[in-house]
């Protein structure tokens, strides 16, 4: 997922961006992996790039897998960047930022420790917004075929003749 904006390269995009929180670079209309090695950028149309970056951080805090790059979390939540969803998402992220202010940070994304961000999420765990984002991630994140190999899951095997000759009983430590 390396989405270009108006024909610009990712490097050009990054050069126009400001570092946001710990992990994101944001510019007008896009969120990107902060370092050059994080090879992804997501264009946003209806949400502000700050809101999208916060949503990506929230997704990671709900289902944190340290070996899974932000790119997959971004894919999992990019569906909220629609004309219909945007207003409610902006309002809910604003509420999350307000909660962060309550514990002394400017915004949710500025809260340094995951533990503290998770506390903020716990406090809103039963809200429809949280449940919508969490429920959406169950398929949005874990049903991405590109994520499966990170967990070792091999997916369909019919095209390769099943596992009959490919280790269905190869366990060797029992």
């Amino acid at each position: 997922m390396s989405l270009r904006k108006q024909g610009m390269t990712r490097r050009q995009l990054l050069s126009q961006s400001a570092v946001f929180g710990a992990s994101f670079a944001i510019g007008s209309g896009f969120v990107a992996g902060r370092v050059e090695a994080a090879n992804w950028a997501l264009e946003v149309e209806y949400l502000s790039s700050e809101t999208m970056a916060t949503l990506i951080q929230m997704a990671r805090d709900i289902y944190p897998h340290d070996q899974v790059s932000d790119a997959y979390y971004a894919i999992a939540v990019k569906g909220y960047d629609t004309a219909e969803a945007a207003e409610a998402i902006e309002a809910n992220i604003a509420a999350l930022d307000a909660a962060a202010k309550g514990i002394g940070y400017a915004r949710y994304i500025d809260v340094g420790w995951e533990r503290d961000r998770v506390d903020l999420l716990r406090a809103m765990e039963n809200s429809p917004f949280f449940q919508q984002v969490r429920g959406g991630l169950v398929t949005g994140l874990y049903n991405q075929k590109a994520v499966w190999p990170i967990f070792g899951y091999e997916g369909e095997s019919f095209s390769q003749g099943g596992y009959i000759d490919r280790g269905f009983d190869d366990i060797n430590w029992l």
Partner: protein
Amino acid sequence: MTAPFDLNDDSVVVIIGTGAGGGVLANELAQKGISVVSLEAGGRYLPEDYINDEWDSFGQLAWTDPRSTSGDWRVAKDFSGLPAWIVKAVGGTTTHWAGASLRFQDHEWKAKSTYGDVQGANLLDWPIDPREMDDYYTKAETKLGVTRTGGRAGLPGNNNYKVFEAGAKALGYKEVHTGRMAINSAEYDGRMACQQTGFCFQGCKWGAKWSSAYTDIPKGEATGHLEVRERCHVMRIEHDKKGRVNGVVYVDAKGKQHEQKARIVCVAGNSIESPRLLLNSASSMFPDGLANSSGQVGRNYMRHMTGSVYGVFDQPVRMWRGTTMAGIIQDEARHDPSRGFVGGYEMETLSLGLPFMAAFLDPGGWGREFTTALDHYENMAGMWLVGEDMPQETNRITLNHDIKDQHGLPVANVHFDDHPNDIAMRSHAYKQGIAVYEAVGATRVFPTPPYPSTHNMGTNRMSEKASDGVVNKHGQSHDIANLFVSDGSQFTTGAAENPTLTIVALAIRQADYIASEMGKKTL
């Protein structure tokens, strides 16, 4: 007469649903030369159509028409619109099923006599002697090609089985093997042997697993006596002035309604849709629904005591490779009230792919406690616990008039509360399942809550007396002689075993009865 049949042909047997019960009954009757029209709400999918991807397959095959839930079971909270995992397709839920095919134990046919009075349970003995079933079980096993019966070899054990077996043996369990499975361990009945592909729940693309979709249905059609009309949803069953059923009204794929006349109607829509259809067929003569003089239609809904245990190990298991459920421990299936509950349970290997594991391991769970479990997905082994649950009158299917399906019909509400016996059995089963994995070095274990019901039973139950149930020992309704129930909803009690072999054996038996009564002109 040969198929296709005319809508006004009132000599045909109409069967509603083509799953384990309906699909087998249709073929068995057709083989005897009896004219059958099978009406199936779902479409026709064959092995080349099956998708080896959990959510895509679910979208292709599952029954996703609206339903509602109530009661204290956790499914009502986590999956309020999806009480059960049932298929809507030619072949019914035998496309998704895992193939575990076990006979009831003798005492399970006589639950009331064996267990005595259990408070809050509406127990009853089946009006069938276990010895009457022996030959029918053999016929069913032959039809399905069940491994470890009739001289057929067992399946080889996969990684998930090997962990399970090692743990079971370490605990001293004796009855441990790769199961009696309706999955070919060698070529059988023109179908090939299992290739250990690992998507048994998504439809077997090799056809190694029995499903009525590509066995009984085409065999019946080949006789010329069976016509299957797919994407035809039966809305109600009609009756004449004497109170005998004489046809069904259904809506086809284009939304057009038709009435098919019938000599006999057999309902086999699974334990949620079958009672719903009988209730939706209420008339001025039968204001409480058809075959419901006992008031038992929809009641005594059973779903088996279930749960799963997953264990994480310090080394890889890769449980998803190979057959999904070919592994069983039967030592706990006995009735032994000293454990603190009546009836027993089976422990069976189970694996879910990563997408379903994320959805079902701990529904609603999040944060690192949840994600560190999935981080070790590759090192996980899994088992399913399945045991007898208590029939309760208040666990029932009712019509929810506030929600209508796409045909404008009230949907089924599924109400379920666990019985204390179910809870006691589940905690025992969790403990034993955990012990199995800890015996082989599990570093973390997960006693996972029940999934949406895969085993649905009891909502049109069989009884000796007309006042106690809906159908007699042949599945013939007590109230209306030419109305039959032919699926798992006939179950008087659920036993510990997976239900399908018994559904199939009862369907074969019912076909003999219907043919003989038709011969005698009593039907």
